[in-house]
């Protein structure tokens, strides 16, 4: 049985013009899987998650959670899932233990409060008011709220967005620990490192549709895999054909700049074996008189996959 099954999901918000947040989305997530929805801002990640969580009704399409439908078994499902929203402000005046106690009271069975704070590593803050915690600690309290009901299925909407590197690491630790315990996890993110590190499988979503599906490795190899050689030339580089003739080159991306003072061309070559192609490349550039400003060899990432699929960066700041 799939933990999450949805098909033909559409969701539009009223407005002028109509906002089509989700446009025909199918997902099948198996039990025990950690599945990631990766997409840029406004891709429809939160909307999809909230439909799956029973917080919004889809305009059309069907949803099945743990083999049950929201319409008939809403409360059964709620007893077995745990969620964190993209943004929740817990009551600042309540302590961690009081907040968890409140959430715990809604579930028939679940964790003791000590166990819940232990999982997120907040034993020392148990008696502190939420208002006195750091952003990362608050996020972990929210995570603990999702865990007190000892759920089989977890929905985490951007669990580490806005946190400093250490806090992100701590959140990831918690998610990994839950994976080990066999929980099914669906998370959204627009960080490719988060997706790569945590998720068994990924759906890359853009404009409300799944545009690629698979494990990180699968996605990268679908994209062509291998390595990327990136460099700038001070004078105009030769045409793409010339680069294509180099051995093992799969794709060529060429950008020319007009501004004086800048590099004249920026070239990205995708290739399987850079150690074979590089000497050839250097000779060719010298012969063509283009010169070489900087050269960089790196592994292809999800970011490159996304760029190749959409022509855009995953995050607006391009990082």
């Amino acid at each position, binding site marked *: 049985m799939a933990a999450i099954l949805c098909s033909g999901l559409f969701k539009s918000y009223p407005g002028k013009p109509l906002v089509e947040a989700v446009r025909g989305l199918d997902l099948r997530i198996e039990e025990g899987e950690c599945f990631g929805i990766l997409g840029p801002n406004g891709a429809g990640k939160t909307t999809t998650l909230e439909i799956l969580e029973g917080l*919004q009704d889809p305009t059309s399409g069907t949803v099945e959670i743990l083999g049950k439908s929201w319409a008939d078994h809403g409360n059964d499902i709620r007893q077995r899932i745990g969620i964190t929203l993209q943004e*929740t402000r817990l009551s600042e005046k309540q302590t961690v233990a*009081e907040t968890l106690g409140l959430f715990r009271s*809604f*579930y028939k*069975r679940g*964790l003791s409060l000590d*166990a819940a704070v232990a999982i997120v590593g907040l034993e020392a803050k148990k008696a502190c008011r939420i208002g006195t915690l750091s952003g990362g600690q608050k996020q972990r309290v929210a995570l603990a709220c999702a865990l007190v*009901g*000892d759920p089989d299925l977890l929905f985490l909407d951007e669990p580490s967005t806005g946190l400093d590197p250490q806090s992100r690491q701590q959140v990831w630790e918690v998610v990994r620990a839950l994976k080990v315990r066999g929980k099914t996890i669906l998370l959204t993110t627009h960080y490719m490192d988060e997706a790569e590190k945590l998720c068994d499988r990924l759906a890359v979503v853009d404009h409300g549709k799944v545009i690629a599906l698979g494990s990180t490795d699968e996605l990268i190899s679908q994209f062509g895999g291998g390595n990327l050689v990136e460099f700038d030339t001070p004078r105009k580089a030769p045409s793409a054909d010339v680069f294509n003739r180099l051995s093992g080159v799969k794709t060529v991306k060429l950008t020319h700049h007009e501004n004086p003072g800048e590099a004249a061309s920026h070239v990205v070559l995708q290739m399987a074996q850079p150690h074979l192609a590089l000497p050839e490349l250097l000779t060719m550039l010298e012969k063509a008189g283009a010169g070489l400003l900087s050269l960089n060899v790196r592994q292809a990432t999800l970011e490159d996959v996304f760029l190749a699929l959409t022509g855009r960066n995953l995050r607006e700041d391009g990082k």
Partner: protein
Amino acid sequence: MNLDKQLQVDSSPQSPMWQLTIARVRDFYREPAAIFWVYGFPLVLAVALGTAFRDRPIERIPVIVVADSPNPNVDTEKILKSLGMDSRLEVTLADSAKASRDLATGKASLLVIPKGEKPLLRAEKNRPESAMALGIVEAALLRARVGEMHQGKEEVEPDIQVETVAEVGGRYIDFLIPGLLGMNLMGGGLWGLGYVTVDLRVRKLLKRLVATPMSKIHFLLSLVLGRMGFLLLEIILLLGFAWLVFGVRIQGGLLPLAAAIMLGACCFQAVGLLVASRATSYEAVSGLMNLTMLPMYVLSGVFFSSDRFPLLIQPLIKLLPLTALNDSLRGVINEGQGITDISGNLIILAIWTLAAFFMAMKLFRWR
């Protein structure tokens, strides 16, 4: 990390109703500002207004006799003498320019311009003190005239006895306290359910709660229950304070008082829920709350009787929930009325409660 040890399952949770209510109570009492506005402010108001409108002996009414009258054959002295015998008047002599100025600025309530047989009394039409002064001066001059006719006596005593009283129950503070109680019930209901709900919605905590198996009935009941708890304290504090400091007494029974308070509380909580049903921002809910409360503060007789408004809109005012509540409270507290006497107002409150509640449930957004 030893996960299996950490993830021991505990299957004896506390009652969600209790947890929700106690969370409400904590949120409240850990907010010192809220405590002041709910508990302190009405007492401050009661003290301030109760002292300002303490029952003082009525001040003497200033009257000016105009001295530079163009008519010389009139006995200005005589007028001064007859008016001077009435202790309610404060009579001074002034020239006509100063006299007109004082009348215009309210320093004098009435001008007496001696004009032969018929002295002229000039009063300011829109000022109640002027009307009072007119009556007193007329009577004083009349008494003097009658005394003159009866063998030149200076004055005759009228065959009337006068007695003034200041009874507990009829003072301004007696009027004010039930009004403040009504105002508190209205504000408490709208804040306690309306603002609190929208606050949870804005913080996305409402959505988060709805995603758990929490019962929505429990949630609403906990708000009501928390509110009723605070309310009990508010009432005891306000009525106890009014009794200790001002000697305000509850003339009627506790049962009709409790009935009026309970219905009033329910009514404004339902209205609070209605106000909160759709609002998704603090600005929206504050605006809606003010829109609801301000007209009633003014029209429903909190600080002064609503009877002062034009007859035409009286039926409308009587139908407002705060008017119905204030009238019931004043009926019980000041006049000792029973359930049957205030039943009309209680019915108005009950209708408002039901209408607001069902409308709120129809419109309410849990997200």
